[in-house]
Structure formats: C-alpha cells, structure tokens
C-alpha cells in the first residue's frame, strides 16, 4: 500500500471567460495555443523513452458553463489518475464528496469530486492511445 499512486499528472486546466471564441483567437495569435472546440492539447511523454504519450488539455468555457457546478470558482483542474475505480472507493471511505458516477468514454474514465474548499476537481484515468 505504500507509495500508492493516485494523481500522476495534470490532465487539464479549464477556465471561464466572457467570450471563449475571442479568447481562443487571442491565445492562438499571441501565445500560439491553437484551440478548437474542445480546446488545445499539450503533448508530453510519461517515460524517457518516448513510448507513452501524455496529454494536458487546455480549454475555455463560457461563464454560464454548468460543467463547474456546484463550484462557483472560475477555474477547474483535471488530474490524471491511475485506477480510478479503486480511488473512488477509497475517497468515499475517506469522506470526500464524490459528485457523480464514473463515466467511461473512448478516451478514459471520469469522475468529479470536491476538494476541502469547494473546488470541483475532475479525475481522469486516461486511455492515452
């Protein structure tokens, strides 16, 4: 159980803005971040051999986005985890607020929790391929 892995990296950063399209234009022009409808992906590797890719997603949402609820904050962080289902069980035992059920998509499994100060956290067990 020691050195048990939980979060292994940042899976994404999302923040609210008044005009996502205008903002995406600005970030593309001035910072070279080319974001489509779902944002931009920063690519890196999990290993020095360059065999396993990792992605950190960056995206902007409108101020009315329901994705961040019940958090009232203007940002949300996605953390990459290993073995999400076991982690969710453990978090429940530890009394952490788990907001929804594990959802499975092609690109991985997701669940949302709240931290000690009401920040909504997205946990992602990625399928990197």
């Amino acid at each position, binding site marked *: 159980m020691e050195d048990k892995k939980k*979060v292994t990296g940042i899976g994404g*950063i999302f923040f609210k803005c008044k005009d996502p399209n205008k903002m995406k234009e600005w970030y593309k*022009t001035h910072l070279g971040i080319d974001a489509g409808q779902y944002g931009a992906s920063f690519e890196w590797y999990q290993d020095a051999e360059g065999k396993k890719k990792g992605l950190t997603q960056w995206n902007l949402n409108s101020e009315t986005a329901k994705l961040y609820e019940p958090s009232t904050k203007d940002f949300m962080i996605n953390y990459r985890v290993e073995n999400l289902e076991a982690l969710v069980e453990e978090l429940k035992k530890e009394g952490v607020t788990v907001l929804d059920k594990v959802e499975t998509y092609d690109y991985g499994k997701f669940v949302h929790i709240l931290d000690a100060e009401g920040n909504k956290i997205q946990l992602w067990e990625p399928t990197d391929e």
Partner: protein
Amino acid sequence: MKKIALITFALATSFCFGFAFKSITSTNSNAKMKRVTGIGGIFFKCKDPKKVREWYQTHLGLNTNQYGTVFEWYQGADSTKKGFSQWSPFKETTKYFEPSTKEFMINYRVENLELLIEELKKEGVTITDTLQTVDYGKFVHIMDIEGNKIELWEPNDIVYEKLGIQMGSKTTK
C-alpha cells in the same frame, strides 16, 4: 508595363534601404516561432493553503512541500528531457495575481522569452513587469484580453530539478 516598372522600383528601393526583405523574413520566422510549449504551472487562491496542500496530499497523493507540488513529465519535443509543472495554492490575500482579480493564474512554458516579449510588445499585449532572470529560468507577466494575469516561463529544467532535490522534495508523477 507601368506595373512592372513599379515593382522594379519597389524592389530597388527595398535593396537600397536594406530592411524590407529583412522585415519580411523576420515576420515569417516569427509566425513560425514557437510560443507556448506547455503548462508550466497552475496557481489558485484558497482560504487555507496549508490545509489544502494537506488535503491533496492525503486524498490525491500529491507529494507536497511548502510551495505545493511539482509534476514531473518528459518533453514532447525530446523525451530524454524532463519537464515540470508547478502546482501551488495561494492565500486569498496574495498580491501575486494582481492586477488580475481572478482566483487562479496559469504559468505557460515558452521558448525564447526575450524574443517573444518583443513580439508581444509589437502586438500591443500588456506586459505587467520586466523580464526577471533566476537560476531556474526567465519570467515575465502579461495580461490576456479578459484581465487574466499570465506567467510566462522559459524554464531551466535542470536547475529546477536540482533545487527540488536540494529541498528534499519529491515530485508527483
């Protein structure tokens, strides 16, 4: 004929002044210039940073120290090189995010910060301070169009890693 003459004249003039072609070349290279290459950090305000760090350590396994944690990964452009992203909760009263009033600030990793600052100035982007050079890289702060303060970092990852080891800190990976 008149058109050709004009073009010839323009070309000749350009050669005489010697800068027209230079400016075209530099525009092209700047268009291709790499700007942001990755996420260098995410900082957010909270009521009690110490408690928040402990919560993330206990429940999500982040290896925290007094500054937060450092996420370790390998660079997309060259997997033999490590890359790092800093994660830090800040006190609500921090002045670090000013003049932004937002609850978060993002640090972006860039290449050739000095050249980028020159470009951003030409493009009319608000730069809130001057370039700071420290052992682990170069920093500057700018504002986006909606009042989010942005930290730009040209990292020295080797020194950054050494500093963490000297502090006895473990990265999160």
